[in-house]
């Protein structure tokens, strides 16, 4: 909900509740005042009637408002008010009246006096109160609506503009964020804080990036020394056990180095450091990769079939496409069985790689997590890298297990 809409909602609620309370209270107060006026009027009339009886010995009767008659002692009624309704002949509808009944004793004779006064209909009263209030509500709301609309274009414009700047902020863009100055103190305070914060974030990010890269690169040098020395040791006359130990150490060092490279790669993809992107036809790359992996697939006697229904075009860094396909296709060979099958299907917005393989070697949930691996020989980073590449390029990757293991990459658009 927009800030101004929120404020408007608050206004509407408060104003509405306030107006309801005012109208309810107003209704009762007004009703009371009117009733008191009527009662006063009735008392005056009663006084006049009693005078009339006492002096003229005359019982006046005017229907429906005045009714007097002589009564015997056992017909005495107590003083009371009653709400009644009478038929109004003129308007031909029921009208409310207040009926006042009293018995007075004048010259040892009892007189029953009934006085009626027409009451304002409740409906009329409610209308009289709520109509102006409703008008007030509509009027204030429309004023509110138009002022907010104008405020959106004036006061909030700079804020909106700045918000857009912040939204478009990227760590890779080394320019500092430049926010518009406004004449509103709060907004300027916010701008200052945001500028400071982004500057600090950018610095930290740069340092972290450099640190990760440097740490990773620095690791490669000692690894190289270890590996070169092991290679030289291998050249000597060695007993079989020693030879095997050294080869296995060398392989471990190689794994360490690859792990390091892959972690660096993962970080770099995540940080979107592969920024040079080109239009890429995936089909061509897949064909090249199949060619490249032929020795491997032939070795296991795996048949690779490629169906290109149409060109799958992506905007991507060529390095990353290579890595993506390398990982997926080498996986499909590595986790395949002897005399297996790999079927690759490419459509306009989808790449599907399916391979035969061992049952249940993968589960849906953690397959793309780091260090999830089938055997200790792999690093468990390959699919994680694939996922990261897809995530940063607005691509969706799915793993489906039917009779075969299928990886499907599709364009989210």
């Amino acid at each position, binding site marked *: 909900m927009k800030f101004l809409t929120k404020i408007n909602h608050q206004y509407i609620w408060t104003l509405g509740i306030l107006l309801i309370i005012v109208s309810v209270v107003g209704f009762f107060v007004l009703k009371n005042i009117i009733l008191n006026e009527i009662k006063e009027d009735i008392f005056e009339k009663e006084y006049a009637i009693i005078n009339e009886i006492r002096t003229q010995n005359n019982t006046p009767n005017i229907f429906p408002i005045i009714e007097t008659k002589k009564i015997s002692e056992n017909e005495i009624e107590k003083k009371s008010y009653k709400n009644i309704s009478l038929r109004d002949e003129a308007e031909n509808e029921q009208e409310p009246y207040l009926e006042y009944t009293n018995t007075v004793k004048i010259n040892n004779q009892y007189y029953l006096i009934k006085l009626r006064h027409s009451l304002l209909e409740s409906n009329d009263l409610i209308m009289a109160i709520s109509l102006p209030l409703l008008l007030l509500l509509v009027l204030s709301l429309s004023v509110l609506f138009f002022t907010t609309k104008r405020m959106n274009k004036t006061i909030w414009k700079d804020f909106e503009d700045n918000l857009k700047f912040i939204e478009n902020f990227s760590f890779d863009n080394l320019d500092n964020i430049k926010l518009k100055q406004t004449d509103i103190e709060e907004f300027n305070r916010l701008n200052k804080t945001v500028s400071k914060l982004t500057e600090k974030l950018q610095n930290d990010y740069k340092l972290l990036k450099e640190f990760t890269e440097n740490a990773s690169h620095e690791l490669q040098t000692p690894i190289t020394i270890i590996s*070169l020395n092991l*290679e*030289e040791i291998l050249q000597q006359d060695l007993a079989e056990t020693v030879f095997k130990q050294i*080869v296995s150490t*060398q*392989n471990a060092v190689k794994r360490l*180095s*690859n792990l390091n490279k892959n972690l*660096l790669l993962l970080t770099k993809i995540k940080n979107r450091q592969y920024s040079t992107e080109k239009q890429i036809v995936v089909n061509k790359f897949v064909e090249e990769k199949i060619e490249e992996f032929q020795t491997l697939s032939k070795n296991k006697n795996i048949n690779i079939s490629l169906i290109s229904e149409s060109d799958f075009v992506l905007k991507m860094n060529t390095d990353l496409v290579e890595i993506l396909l390398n990982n997926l296709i080498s996986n499909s060979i590595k986790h395949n069985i002897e005399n297996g099958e790999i079927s690759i299907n490419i459509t306009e917005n989808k790449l599907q790689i399916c391979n035969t393989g061992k049952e249940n070697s993968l589960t849906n949930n953690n397959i793309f997590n780091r260090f999830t691996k089938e055997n200790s020989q792999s690093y468990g980073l390959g699919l994680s890298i694939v996922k990261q590449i897809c995530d940063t390029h607005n691509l969706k990757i799915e793993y489906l297990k039917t009779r075969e293991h299928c990886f499907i990459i599709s364009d989210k658009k």
Partner: protein
Amino acid sequence: MKILVVEDEIELLTTVSNYLTKEKYICELAENFQKAKKKLSINEYDIILLDITLPDGDGIDLLQTIRKNNIRAGVIILSAKNSLDDKITGLDFGADDYMTKPFQLSELNSRIKAILRRHKFGGDSTLHFNEISITTDSKTVKINNKEIVLTKKEYDMLLYFIINKNRVLTKEAIAEHLWNDNIDLSDNFDFIYTHLNNIRRKIKSKGGNDYIKTIYGMGYKFTDQ
């Protein structure tokens, strides 16, 4: 053949130079930018091995000076960075090859030899090993002057063996040389064996000897000793 190794890590420098000396190269060392620059102004080298991250300067600058002064040396960049961008920059500035750390000495040797062949030998780029001769221009292999036909991988493998003769080469090193990628091939070494057997068979068919020795089932050595 004279080689200048520019590398700030002393241990790496010594290991590489020891190896290169053993391989009959004349080896000179520079552990920083200034030293390298000085040596380049005095001496001529056939090959320069260049680490691009030096403490007192950028290896790429050194590369630019080399190319500006028209020094006719082959340059191999040794870098800890494994990114295509760096590779392209390096090759754009006139490097002949680019190797990422960690590398293998046998691989280094084979790259050096490849550059030397391209730079110096010209038409006469033939390698000999007893009855085997390889002409790298036409990629032909002859045994006792009789040509044998090898596939591309078999040819690459034989060349790698002959360049690194008398050296123990592990299956991993051979696989990395042939496919020069990070593909995890550990459980797929059988194809190396297949290629090897093909080479042996083809050499034998023209009366050649089998020089490929298997070492404990984990490595190979091309030797006549």
